[in-house]
């Protein structure tokens, strides 16, 4: 009835530098994760990944980002939360996903947990490596 994923990666880079990379779509493209139809309005960013529209809202004060998919036919809902905090030796990047797959989706909750855990860890690692440059 619900999927949950929680992944963490540590970057050997300061918090501000990690935050700058994590919120820069040009950096995502350099990391091999380009997005389409990008539109920014203040702290709110909309773009497409695969066929789905994604909205990200940044909270610079708390160094967090809330992201959700809009109008997906695969997910009933998919909420991501990204946290960034200073830890010994650098910055911890964390992503929590809460979601539910639609009836008839190509994958069930457990299968998508495995996919998202792998994908999100890859995204965080790519962000961390870029921030370390």
């Amino acid at each position, binding site marked *: *009835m*619900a999927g*949950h994923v*929680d992944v963490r990666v540590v970057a050997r880079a300061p918090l501000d530098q990690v935050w700058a990379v994590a919120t820069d779509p040009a950096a995502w493209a350099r990391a091999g994760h380009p997005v389409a139809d990008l539109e920014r309005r203040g702290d709110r960013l909309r773009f497409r990944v695969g066929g789905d529209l994604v*909205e990200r*809202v940044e*909270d610079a004060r*708390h160094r*967090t980002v*809330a992201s*959700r998919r*809009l*109008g997906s036919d695969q997910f*009933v*809902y998919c*909420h991501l*939360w990204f*946290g960034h905090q200073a830890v010994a030796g650098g910055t911890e990047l964390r992503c*929590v996903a*809460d979601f*539910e797959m639609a009836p008839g989706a190509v994958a069930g909750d457990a299968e998508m947990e495995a996919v998202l855990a792998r994908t999100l860890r890859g995204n965080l690692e790519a962000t961390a490596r870029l921030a370390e440059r």
Partner: protein
Amino acid sequence: MSAHTDNEIVIAAPLALVWDVANDVQRWPELFAGEYAAAEVLERDEDRVRFRLTTVPGPDGRAYSWVSERCLDRGRGTVEARRVEPGPFRYVHLFQSFTATPAGTRLRWVQDFEARPGAPFTDEAMRRRIDAGARANLRRHRDVIEALAASGVSR
């Protein structure tokens, strides 16, 4: 390290009425019995409303207040909401769906959240509180909206 609640109720009223009433934030002090003292809309556009909620003071006399944002998708009958001012939480995410069924409208509330370290409650204590509150407030929604439907209000 995070918590999840999922509750639903069927309300014997048309989806349009349930949608309109449940999304009328200014009515929340009536729809969430004993929970919110005030709900003030700060910003509203077609599919998004940002508002400040203030709780009824607890046994210690303290009231809490924070800003939340609801994003509405009328076509799908879904609402996604989050606390903009997270306060003692790292995050609070809500998903709500409104589904027409033969018996009326099924209203479902899903919440995912995590308490910050140092919050005055644990995830599990808050999960129990939110779970019990959701069940009571869904019943309250049903009672209020079914009374409106019975009095001939259609939306």
